[in-house]
């Protein structure tokens, strides 16, 4: 594996920051550390087995979900409901709360834990109403200057007849467009499955993080396998081919940092997983403090417009 372009960019930024470090305080040295950590991680390429293990962990039924993190990290949580048109989608959570001393909005897909809740949450697969609720709350946050944290955890948008009739594709596009217009700091973190369009709909953020054992992909391994080899059982082979793990996403510049999990995975210790996520979110939001809204927006768009490999 050749040194990636993203790694080159990181090294260059590291070099620049090191020259500045005599001037900078704690915040700058924190960023130096983070960059060094990223570069180190890019070296650690995962084996096929490790990748598959991450797919399993990302989908682990005991893995903390959006509301588990909210319960541990957000004070004065007030959930908002409804798309103001059609319904209230249980697969998408949106609301306001206090985090690190200020009001933020949190938006994220929500999987269900028991059978009843799984149906209500549609396994974390939102309908257009869910994306429209997300947009509504993000616009509310934007008006009031509240930073936005999105937690991505979905196999994908719900592939239903009614979902299509109500404009699933357009809702996913509109949600991204809404995020591209925001003037408040935004941080997305993939906390489980970052499944395709259903995930990116709420992940066009200033910074994109991924938990250590989360996955982020254009298609599920099973979906990929059933197209390529006409056999969903070849999912492991497919996952190895497109590597949905965090290190690979970091290497490609798709994400900005990897959030550590408790040893063995987030499902083992929800409290510690939340603490680690909370630290990462606080630090990342801190980096965005003080940047004017239109500059945030400019950089956010530029960040995504850089992605791709061509000659």
């Amino acid at each position, binding site marked *: 594996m050749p040194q990636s372009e993203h790694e080159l960019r990181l090294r260059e930024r590291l070099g620049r920051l090191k020259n500045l470090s005599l001037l900078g305080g704690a915040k700058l040295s924190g960023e130096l550390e983070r960059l060094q950590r990223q570069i180190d991680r890019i070296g650690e390429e995962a084996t096929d087995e490790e990748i598959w293990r991450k797919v399993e962990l990302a989908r682990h039924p005991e893995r903390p979900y959006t509301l588990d993190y909210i319960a541990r990290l957000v004070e004065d949580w007030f959930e908002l409901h409804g798309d103001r048109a059609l319904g209230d989608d249980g697969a998408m959570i949106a609301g306001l709360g206090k985090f690190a001393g200020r009001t933020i909005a949190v938006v994220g897909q929500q999987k269900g834990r028991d059978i009843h809740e799984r149906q209500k949450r549609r396994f974390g697969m939102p309908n257009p109403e869910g994306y429209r609720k997300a947009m509504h709350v993000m616009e509310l946050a934007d008006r009031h200057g509240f930073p936005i944290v999105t937690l991505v955890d979905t*196999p*994908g*948008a719900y*592939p*239903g*007849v009614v*979902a*299509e*009739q*109500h*404009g*699933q*594709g*357009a809702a*996913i*596009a*509109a949600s*991204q*467009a809404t995020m*591209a*217009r925001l003037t408040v700091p935004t941080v997305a973190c993939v906390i489980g499955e970052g*499944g*395709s*369009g*259903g*995930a*990116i709909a709420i992940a*066009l953020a200033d910074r994109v993080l991924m938990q250590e054992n989360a996955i*982020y*992909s*254009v*298609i*599920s391994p*099973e*979906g*990929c396998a*059933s*197209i*390529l*080899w006409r056999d*969903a059982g070849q*999912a492991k082979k497919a996952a190895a*081919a*497109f*590597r*949905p793990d965090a290190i*690979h*996403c970091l290497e*490609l510049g*798709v994400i900005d940092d990897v959030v550590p999990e408790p040893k063995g995975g987030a499902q083992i210790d929800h409290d510690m997983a939340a603490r680690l996520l909370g630290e990462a979110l606080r630090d990342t939001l801190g980096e965005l403090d003080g940047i004017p809204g239109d500059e945030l927006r400019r950089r*956010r*768009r*530029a960040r*995504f*417009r850089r*992605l*791709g*490999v*061509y*000659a």
Partner: protein
Amino acid sequence: MAKIDVSVETGDQPAPPPSHPNTCPSCHSHYRDDELERELWVCTQCGHHFPMRARPRIASLADPGSFVEEAADLHSEDPLHFFDLRPYTERLAEAEMKTGLADAMVIGRAAIDGRNTMLAVMDFAFMGGSMGSVVGEKFSRACDLAAETGTPLISVTSSGGARMQEGILALMQLPKTVAAVEDLRDSGQALVSVMAHPTTGGVLASFATLGDVLLAEPNALMSFAGPRVVQEITREKLPDDFGRAEQNVRYGQIDAIVPRPQLRSTLSRLLRLFDAPE
């Protein structure tokens, strides 16, 4: 939980091909190549719209001699060293040989009835019109060129979705093209989106539905998830016109269905309305 949501096409054909590509799958009329070409690949018997390649599409819309292609040389790389039944690089080379195109989108400046515009036209024959880094980059450049030259952008899409062989970078073409549309929008220029059969998955879920005006060709499939996937997951019987342009009109998703013979005059009118420069 096996599911596909950005439907991804790896073949080169829209579906099981008809017995002969010039036979109308709807009414079985048969045409010679030159007949079809003259009729813009529309069946004169039943109105069925055959797939239309990017270059003839551009020729059918732009004033003669007005089209100036941009970024023709952009080629995909193979960031994942992707190998399924065959290496991605081999698929790319084959698609290029077959279509004469470097990737699934052609962009450039053009004039329609004397009014300047940018065009971004997809070609389904190139790997199912799938969107990888090159399509994303070309579309983004088309947005910037439209903003710089002060002209609207007309996109004509035909795509199975994101290009799986580019992995997560293919998914990133969704936010990339969305960001480009937003930059175009901030410049005050219009995006007119024409969705031809099929416009599905990641292209539907990004720039194609963000136009100021949304048009579709008759009977074009415009669903985010493919009918097969929806059927498998929901076990519901799908409506006959599932995801089709007609359903999308009924549900308020698009402005109009425009048969191909009227597309040029419709776009010309929209360029006048959006004050495209002469």
